[in-house]
């Protein structure tokens, strides 16, 4: 049996109030150590206020080749954008 540590994806909250953002990944034997390693690898310059780690194997991702079918349908829905509507300046910001 391989004793290679599993891979973890690391998410850091940079400042109070912001979302956690993916910053990279690392190997660690368990979640607790993954957080400690993440602290050492990704926040040596005080980059964060909070860390999340998730086992890479637990992440389901869409494939880059699905980009078209997934996202193109919203291309022709320009009416979802506020700029689609001509609102005269006189009525103020809307």
């Amino acid at each position: 049996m391989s004793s290679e540590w599993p891979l973890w994806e690391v998410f850091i909250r940079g400042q109070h109030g912001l979302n956690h953002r993916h910053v990279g990944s690392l190997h660690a034997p368990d979640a607790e150590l993954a957080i400690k390693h993440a602290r050492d690898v990704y926040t040596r310059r005080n980059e964060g206020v909070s860390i999340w780690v998730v086992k890479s194997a637990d992440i389901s991702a869409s494939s880059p080749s699905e980009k078209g079918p997934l996202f193109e349908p919203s291309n022709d829905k320009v009416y979802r954008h506020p700029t689609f509507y001509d609102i005269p300046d006189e009525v103020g910001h809307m």
Partner: protein
Amino acid sequence: MYAQLVKSEGKSKAELTPEDHAFQARIDAGEKIEPKEWMPEGYRKTLIRQIGQHAHSEIVGQLPEGNWITRAPTLERKQILLAKVQDEAGHGLYLYCAAETLGVSRDELLEKLHSGDMKYSSIFNYPTLTWADMGAVGWLVDGAAIMNQVPLQRTSYGPYSRAMIRICKEESFHQRQGYAIMMKMANGTPEQKQMAQDALNRLWYPSLMMFGPSDKDSVHSVQSMAWKIKMNTNDELRQKFVDQTVPQAEYLGLTVPDPNLKWNEEKGGYDFSEPDWDEFFNVIKGNGPCNKERLGARVKAWDDGAWYREAMVAHAKKKAARRTVAAE
């Protein structure tokens, strides 16, 4: 406001513990509170009520507009309305997720909506009678919601604040498409203009009620404002809404249905009539024109969808079992 009359559960000064004081100090310093951090039980409960009510409003709010999707006057208008109603569903989901970080389950929240324990905004208990109402709802109802939601982007609870930021970004389209309908109607035939005026007449006061009761009757504001769950008083926001909306009505050539409406140079804002608060409390109690219909539609959708939810879980289980067999 999408959350009205949210009961706040503060403690009296004498009951405050050192943890409570430290918590308040963090909020005063502008820090965000995140899900796993210590928080007073009252803060947690009040937030669940408020975010839950806000989420319910987004979901129930789909009904008055959904009512017109099949009858939109053009294909373009139908697409726009469909996109807006779809956004409202999305907004409800962002908010339910934010509430769930506080330890309440989605099913619990829905159960409380369906049983009447939790409310949604009173505005959605009014009917949408003509196509002009689609214009007035976007312009007035979404306008009032934006007025309330923009300051909530700075609320103290991180997940709520982030949901609000996302929602506000998507909300501008809602108000603009509504106002664009109003412009079209107001510049149309005399009958169309009359429909626009009629929609404004019916929705003006219910829109003013969205901000909740007058400050002198708003018993829960002080604690919620200290916790930065509520950022402005009801009357402040209502005044801002009136000041912003009256010139927009004038531009349309429509008349705000308030004989007492008058610019007050001294305060730099309009004087206006308060809505009928008896009507407001009556609607909140369940006696508005559409309360039964709205809640009935939600309960029916939930019950009718039960087989689908169960089938999807059964299918997922079957797929997982197949994968296990294949792996062996």
